[in-house]
């Protein structure tokens, strides 16, 4: 059995991003998960959300929680990732000047998500969109 959560991510509204994360963390506490799992999940959630906003121009986040794992999937219909391998390198970023001015673009988003999850899968097509799936094991 899986508990599912869905959040729409507005590409124009940075301010609302925190709310989804807060609700998600509450659910994890209601399930009695460890602080470590909550921390890892919160960071992955945050990085994924930011990426969906500044790169994907908005999209959605679907979370599925089972006894075995937490799966967080970000989907967008944005420009897609040209070079996934490069995108995974620390320090590399395709953030626009505007995003960098806001403090983003350090190039640590995807590497952080990889660091704090047990499995990271990226599917992307240039011009069509991107799906990023993170799995955090509970068992």
């Amino acid at each position, binding site marked *: *059995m*899986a*508990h599912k959560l869905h959040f729409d991510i507005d590409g124009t509204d940075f301010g609302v991003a*925190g709310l989804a*994360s*807060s609700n998600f*963390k*509450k*659910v994890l*506490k*209601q*399930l*009695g998960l460890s*602080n*470590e799992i*909550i*921390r890892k999940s*919160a*960071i992955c*959630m*945050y990085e994924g959300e930011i990426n969906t906003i500044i790169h994907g121009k908005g999209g959605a986040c679907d979370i599925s*929680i*089972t*006894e075995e794992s937490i799966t967080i999937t970000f989907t967008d219909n944005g420009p897609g990732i040209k070079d996934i391998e490069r995108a995974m390198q620390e320090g590399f970023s395709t953030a626009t000047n505007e995003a960098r001015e806001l403090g983003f673009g*350090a190039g*640590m988003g995807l590497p*952080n998500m990889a660091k704090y999850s047990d499995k990271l899968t990226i599917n992307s097509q240039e011009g069509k969109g991107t799906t990023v799936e993170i799995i955090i094991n*509970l068992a």
Partner: protein
Amino acid sequence: MSGFLDNLHHSVTLDKDKCKGCTTCLKRCPTEAIRIHDGKARIIRELCVDCGECIKVCPYHAKKAVTDSLDKLKNYKYNIALPAPALYGQFQNLKDIDYVLNGLLAIGFDHVYETAKATEAVTEYTKKLLVCGKLKKPVINSACPAVVRLICVRFPSLVENILPIIAPFEAAAIAARRDAVARTGFSPEEIGVFFISPCAAKATTIPNPIGMNVSPVSGVLSIKSIYMPLASAMKKLKELRPLSEASLEGVNWARSGGETKALGNIGRCICVDGVENIISLFEQIEDNEALDVDFIEALSCEGGCVSGALTTENGYIAKMRIVELGKAQKEKLKDMPVNPVNVDEAELDWSRKVVSRDVHNLDSDFKAALKKLEQINKIYETLPHTDCGSCGSPTCKCFAEDIVRGMAEEIDCIHKLKEKISILMSK
């Protein structure tokens, strides 16, 4: 597991006769610890952090803090007052802190030891710990008990970030008693050490100490309760003994930013005050690793301790006076030697680990908890999502959870009741 769930004594209580069962405190509690049952507010002990917000917002003054009275001094042979620096800001036209200290001697205390003085020891040690680099960043101050408890209840992943040392008023109690034993020859048990407090959170640390098994403080008197006798005594003073040793930095601990200012250059700092502001910030701190913050000074009361629920003066007016009095102290003490605070660094360390409270868990069995989560969602979908509070829970989400936990019934929802009635009437 230690401390928190063993003895859930709280200082915040309700005067049932004055309570109207309105939704004000219900909606404002930062940990959703309040419910309205049978027309009266009830506080869920496991969730309450003694921040005192409900005391501040209750329009009927039904919420109170339980603190000690001057009668308790009779239990001891020698009594020391530990005034919080916030006390100094309560008096109009006060130019010299010595009036307050002499006044405290006049109302029954044998000695006064300023909490502002004890901050020096805490500041020194904090600087040392921050520089040694072993603490988890961002380091969050431990001086506000409501913040520490808020973290334990609502931000358990940040428990490891709390600066693991006791608060200035506790350091003051240790130093004051030690000095008094040496000075008077009384045994430690014969000496009463009383904190003059601006808030309920600190009162709760006597039965429920943070980071230690037994508090060195004998009792807590609220600023509110001693204001009148103290102000009256201050007016009648025949002589003014120079008693105050508080530095400008120490006095400024009464306002937000004071602790940080005293630390000097210790890196990137955030000062946040007000419970709602702290909650928004801490959510960000949990999520965003890249923030690169070294130290956070978080105070539950907006403006700092001067705005505590047990003060008599408006916090911002008091703050103005605090700043002025701090400057006056600096001038007064500039050529005087600085006496050390008689407390060891080891005594400042927490002697007992602070742990988070596992209060949100729906079920110790994960599968059962998942099932309950589904039930909560199902019930939530049928609710109006107005968060009106009429059911006695602060939000519809909370109400759905209360139902699944067996604490409430669907019929408590006025909207659902209306629905049912209109169905019956249409038949």
